[in-house]
């Protein structure tokens, strides 16, 4: 039982990271029906930014986190503006392939500019472990979980309560009707990219603290896992992405702990296949019924 709870704790920390990433996938998909394959690389940029500002400008955790969110948001908006906006009215496959291209550009561009070496992320927060009934939990794990939860609550408030959040939802369900009430869809789409990418930037700093190592290709696997989490939760659904992220994180650590380390990714995708067979729209996805 102790081992189980230990793995749940570890899974929740890893799951927070996946959840933050999955939110970006799901929001962007919700509004322009694009799987933004470059999303994992924004997380990598966030991690590198954190690495740089902590080492060179001696930023503390909060400063590094917030500035990485800004960097993430700006990169997301720039990528959307130059790579996806010109393809707004092209077939979806064109935009999808472009997204893969942007991802390669960021990964290889960063390797070229800063070398592909793995770097150790500066540990600005001294790790302490607390023993709660035999379950070890570190202050960094708590920090990751709390930060992720705060960001998710903020995101939910923005989407539900603010005018821009409502506009995002309006554009994602009916962009022509949104234009007809005066909503500028381009601005709204940029805003969505900014929000989603800022979460990816934050996740990059958090993973740096947690795993202590970063490299230009670090976004690939978590990017795909977070995408799986978004699909699992029901792509386009914001609560679904959070739940999916936590679920994937916990599953992964649980299977790792029972000695299936080599198969942990296979298990994650296996679970995805099973859930999609039973619930094709994912856990929280809506089966679209259109009223005419």
């Amino acid at each position, binding site marked *: 039982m102790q081992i189980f709870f230990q793995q749940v704790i570890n899974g929740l920390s890893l799951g927070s990271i996946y959840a933050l990433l999955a939110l970006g996938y799901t929001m962007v998909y919700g509004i322009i029906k694009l799987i933004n394959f470059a999303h994992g690389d924004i997380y990598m940029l966030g991690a590198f930014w954190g690495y740089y500002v902590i080492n060179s400008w001696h930023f503390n955790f909060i400063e590094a986190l917030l500035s990485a969110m800004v960097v993430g948001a700006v990169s997301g908006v720039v990528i959307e503006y130059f790579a996806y906006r010109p393809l707004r009215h092209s077939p979806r496959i064109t935009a999808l392939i472009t997204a893969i291209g942007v991802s390669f550009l960021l990964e290889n561009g960063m390797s070229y500019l800063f070398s592909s070496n793995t770097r150790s992320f500066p540990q600005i927060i001294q790790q302490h472990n607390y023993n709660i009934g035999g379950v070890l939990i570190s202050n960094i794990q708590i920090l990751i979980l709390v930060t992720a939860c705060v960001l998710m609550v903020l995101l939910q408030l923005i989407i539900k309560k603010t005018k821009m959040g*409502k506009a995002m939802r309006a554009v994602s*369900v009916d962009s*022509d*009707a949104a*234009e*007809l009430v005066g*909503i500028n869809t381009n601005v709204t789409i940029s805003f969505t990219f900014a929000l989603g990418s800022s979460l990816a930037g934050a996740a990059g700093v958090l993973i740096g603290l947690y795993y202590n190592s970063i490299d230009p290709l670090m976004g690939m696997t978590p990017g795909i896992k977070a995408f799986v989490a978004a699909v699992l939760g029901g792509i386009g659904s914001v609560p679904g992405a959070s739940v999916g992220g936590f679920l994937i994180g916990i599953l992964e650590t649980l299977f790792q702990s029972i000695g299936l380390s080599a198969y942990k990714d296979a298990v994650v995708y296996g679970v995805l296949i099973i859930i999609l067979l039973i619930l094709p729209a994912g856990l929280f996805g809506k089966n679209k019924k259109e*009223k*005419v």
Partner: protein
Amino acid sequence: MLKVSDLVVNYGVINAVKKVNFEINQGEIVTLIGANGAGKTTILKSISGLLKAKSGQIEYEGKSINRQKAPKIVAAGISQVPEGRHIFPGLSVKENLQMGAFLVKDSSKIRQGFQEVYDRFPVLKERENQDAATLSGGEQQMLAMGRALMARPKLILLDEPSMGLAPIFINEIFDIIKEINSNGTTVLLIEQNAKKALSIADRGYVVASGEIKMTGTGGELLQNEDVQKAYLGG
């Protein structure tokens, strides 16, 4: 108020609207009637900025609005209620109306807008917090009209407001259109229900295969034999 001259619009490769001319004066109800596919919706969409005209002029209050995007046109005072309602599912009735007032900055004007819309459509007030997708067809039509009115338009474009509605709602919708008009909003109405449309309209235009075939006052067109044969079932 609105003057459309030599308007040509292509819909993909189809030449949907061919040199159309018509105008709307302030305070009028003008209707475009015609069969399915005659080009009525295309004309409306090019006024509201969803489609770009290939050539021709659309002048509103003396200024060309051809090249303007939809949000700019809403800001200028033209709101469209699209065919098939197109309310925002997943947003509550209240949020749908708030989105209607997206460009209204003055919060007292927004409050006034809510007041007026709720007075006119009390059922929307009752269902304020309900997901708009759960409304009936007639209620969704009212919400779509309420949403357009929240922008406080000077000219409202209505695309098939009675489509798919129960007869009891159809009469109500036409009464509401008259009311909206008598409160000072100019109306451009597109309808397949030509009889109803002509009976409340000051003037009408008959559209067929992308061209205006005939024009006259609502009464004249109602009496016209060709119009009766083609559009009024007898």
